Each structure stands twice: as C-alpha cells, then as structure tokens.
C-alpha cells in the first residue's frame, strides 16, 4: 500500500472532528429550512422529518419581508462598493506610480484605519449620523462601509496595479496624452479584473456587516438582511425557526459560494504581502 494512501487516511482521520463541526451548522440550516413547522419542536429532538416542505421558502419571503431587506442590502452593498472604489482607485494609483512626500506616513495611516473596528467607534458614528440627520437612512451605511473598506481596497488595488507595466502609460505620455487621459484610456481597462475582484470583496463585507446596520437603522422597512434576520430571532417568544433558516440559506449561500471561489485573492489585500 502506498505511502500516500496511508498518509491520506491518517490526515482525514485527524481532520474529521473539525470537518464534522464545520459542516454541522450547514446541515442544521438546510434540514430546518425544509422542515414542516409542526415538526420543529419534536421530543426527543431529531434530525428526521416527514417531508421536504419547499413552500417554507415562499412563505418566508412574505412573512419575513425578505424581498424588502434584500433590496436594502443590495442598495447599500452596491453603493458602498462604488463609493469605496471612487475613493480608492486614485489613491492606489498614486501609491503604485508616484514617489511623493509623506508616502510612508500615508501607508501607515492606511494600515491603522484598516485595523480600526467600527464597534469601538459605533457611539461616535451614531452621534455623527444624528448630527447629519442620516439615522434611519441607508446612506449612513453606504458612507461608513466605504470608509471602513477603503484601506483594504487601496492595499489590494495597489498590489495589482504594481503588476501592470508602466511603460504603456509612459508611451502614451510621449505621444502627448495627459496623465488623466492615459489613466482613463490605457491604465483602467488593464486594471478591470483587479478592480472587479476587489469590488466583490467590498460587496461581501458590506453585505455581511451587522453592528453598524443594527445601530443606524431603527425602522423595519430599512433593515438590511442580517438585521432583518436577527430581528426575527431577538427578543421574541415565538421564533419561526424554519423561516429564519430558510432566510439564512438564501442570504448566505450565494455569497458564500462566490467568496469561496475568490478567497485565494483575498490574502493579497490583507497587508500580508508584507510577510510573504
């Protein structure tokens, strides 16, 4: 028997407890989402149930107001992504192409804001949004998400921009194009894949954000998906767990698939280039 086969068996045995614990919540989510309501609280508790109740998803859509929350989440995530990119692309370009005074300082500033956590500032942010009359307004989230994702975005874009040869732009300058023109015509088209990957990560971060959304939104109709689903669980005597799990499946699985697929790019932007 080959060495590799023995090793594979040992490794899988070692990993198996963790694999089970990781897959367990996914199984719970799916099994509960399709379970008939009156079989939620059977005793003794059991994995088994009589039939797949796919209608749970349909009922959930209206009962949980999933569609409304979905639109809110989409609006906030798309707008925050666009705003973050608008602020980050020029900054990343400057870091990648120019030497300037204070560049080191600016990089340190980015490292610091990247690690800054919204929860520590949440009270100050709330007071800021009150002052601007933006509480209960999705745009408060758009601005804050853009700001908190910016440092990560700039890192990520800069590391990609460095790989785009500068000769192409220099050739354009020789031909008399202005910097702005060469940036838009020559550079940006080459950077599209990098920008797309980065955009997806900002989108997912915004999609998943909880604390700020919980704080800034007070009106049910404004809730984003995480807050909407949380509101179905928090402080209720009667929790419709089959609806909650159906909503969780729809809110997470598509995003999780995209994330798993692009994850290998993520590390680039996490300032870990520094330790490679």
């Amino acid at each position, binding site marked *: 028997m080959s060495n590799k086969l023995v090793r*594979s068996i040992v490794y899988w045995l070692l*990993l198996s407890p963790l694999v089970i614990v990781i897959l367990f919540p996914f199984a719970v989510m799916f099994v509960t989402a399709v379970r008939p309501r009156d079989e939620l609280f*059977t005793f003794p508790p059991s994995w088994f149930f009589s039939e797949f109740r796919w209608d749970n998803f349909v009922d959930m859509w209206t009962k949980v107001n999933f569609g409304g929350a979905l639109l809110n989440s989409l609006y906030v995530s798309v707008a925050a992504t666009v705003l973050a990119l608008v*602020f980050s692309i020029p900054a990343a*370009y400057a870091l990648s192409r120019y030497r300037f005074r204070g560049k080191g300082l600016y990089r*340190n500033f980015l490292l610091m804001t990247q*690690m800054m956590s919204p929860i520590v500032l949440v009270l100050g942010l709330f*007071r800021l949004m009150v002052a601007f009359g933006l509480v209960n307004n999705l745009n408060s989230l758009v601005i804050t998400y853009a700001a908190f994702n910016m440092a990560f975005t700039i890192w990520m874009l800069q590391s990609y921009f460095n790989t785009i040869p500068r000769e192409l732009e220099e050739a354009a300058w020789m031909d008399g194009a202005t910097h702005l023109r060469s940036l838009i015509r020559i550079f940006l088209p080459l950077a599209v894949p990098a920008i797309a990957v980065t955009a997806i990560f900002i989108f997912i971060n915004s999609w998943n954000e909880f604390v700020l959304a919980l704080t800034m939104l007070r009106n049910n109709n404004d809730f984003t998906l995480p807050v909407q689903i949380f509101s179905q669980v928090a402080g209720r005597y009667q929790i419709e767990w089959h609806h909650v799990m159906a909503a*969780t499946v729809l809110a997470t699985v598509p995003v999780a698939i995209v994330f798993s697929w692009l994850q290998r790019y993520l590390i680039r932007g996490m300032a870990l280039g520094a330790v490679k």
Partner: protein
Amino acid sequence: MKAFRATPLLMIIPSLLLAMFIIGYPIIDLAYTSMQQVSRFGQLRGFNGMANFAEVFSDPLFYASLIRTGIWTVAVVGGTLILSLPIAMILNDEFYGRGMARVIIMLPWALSLTMTAVVWRWALNGRAGLLNASLMGMGISHEPIEWLATAPVAFTTEILIGILVSIPFTTTIFLGGLSSLPQDAYEASMVDGATRWKQFRFLTLPLMRPFINIAIVLNVIYVFNSLPIIWVMTEGGPANGTDILVTYLYKLAFRFGQLGKASAISLIMFGVLFVFIIIYVIMVMRNEDDGGAAGEAAE
C-alpha cells in the same frame, strides 16, 4: 520623469478626507463626550471632567466584562493558533482529497459571523436543537442539554464557536508561511537523522515565528472587539454573565442610554485597540525592511 508633484497628493486627499470624517471625527467626538455629562437622550449637559471614567472604574460589571474580555480573547486566539498550525501543516502536505479538505476548512470564513451565530443559536436550542439530537442519538447524553441557559456553559460554547470561525483565516496565514519555508533545510535535517518532532520543534516553529506573531496580533484585534457571536447567541446574558466589553458598551449606549459612561468605555477600548494596531504596524514595517535588505543583498 517630471510628474507634477501635486498630482499624487490630489489623488490621495479624497481618501484621507473620508477617513478623517468617518474614522477620525468619531474618535474626537467620543473623547469629548466622555468628559461631558450626557442626558438619556444624548444631550450634552456640560463638562464634568473625569466623572464618567470614575463611574466606569467603580462599576463591578465593567470589571467583570473586562476579565471576560481577557478570557475570551486569550481562549479564542490561543485555541485558534494551537489548532491552526497542525491543520496548516496537514493541508500543506500532499494527500488524497487535499483540495476538498481545503475548501471545507475554509467554509466558516465564507459565512458572516451574524448568520453563523443565528444558526448555532438554533442548533444549540435546549429543547429541540439538533446538537442535542445528535448527542442523544449517539447515546452520548440522555437528557437534552441547555447550552445557552447558564453563563459558564454559554460562554464556553461561544468561545468554541469563536475558535471555529477564526481557524480559516489563521490557517491561511500559516499556509502562506509554510509554502515559503526552505526545503533544503528539511532535507539536510533528514540526512542528520532528525525526528519529525525535532524537525517541528527546531526548524518549523522558529521559521514560522513571524507568521505566528502576525497571526496573534491580527486575531487579537479581530477577536477582542467582535460583537456578533455573543450578541446574537446570548446578548451578553443570562444576567450579564457572558458580557464582554463590546456587548456591555453596546448595551450601555443603545439600551440604557448611559452615553457618557459608554463613550468612556469606548475610549478605553480604543486605547487598547490602538496599542495592538501600533504593534501590527511596527511588525509590518519591520518585515518590509527585512525584505528590502534581503532583496538588496541578493542583487
């Protein structure tokens, strides 16, 4: 090339302004509010010096939360590191189904913390939770266990979930480190007859030191102010028994309207966070310097 010097500055200024506005201003506002008397409705009623801080430091719940924050951070980060290094070493080796194993180990990262916590809250339900179903089905327990009803059990459970969701990120850092280790050193040690344990102890561990350090600092930053798991599963309860500083701070600010006290705690937390951020920045810069020096030596 003679680029106009103002160009790069103009390009970074918008991002600076946005960060100052959204991240800088709240810090100043918190510092200001923490030294004000604040009404329940958020009106500032004038300077009161260190009164809010004095109130915080005489509050037994603050100390309880502080100690629990320490336990939470050390337990989650420690547990994550101890598990992640062997996992990364396994995933770095060749074996059948490695691609599959990598995808599974990374899965928790793909779910948001909030959703993970919602699912676990249901899975741990004392009456009908599927964890109890599994344990009873396998004959491990005979009575359903109330996982979230008492603080010590609930807090331990939350720590374990904290570890579970931190493993993918940490393993990724370690995988990056392992793939950069010099193979010839291992071959040389094999020739010298080193055992696997000795290889690990005297070769892998020292070489992985920088990666372990950065994993510690980043995890501490993420874990010490992570709200969703505890907030969704127990909201710091029962009876404040699972409160850590962030959940206590959130309750003070948005449930009890004690804004002065809450901003004082925010500022204290900001101070702690800032220390770790500085450590992180120094580590990154030192690594860059080393990298630069090594690059020059190679030329």
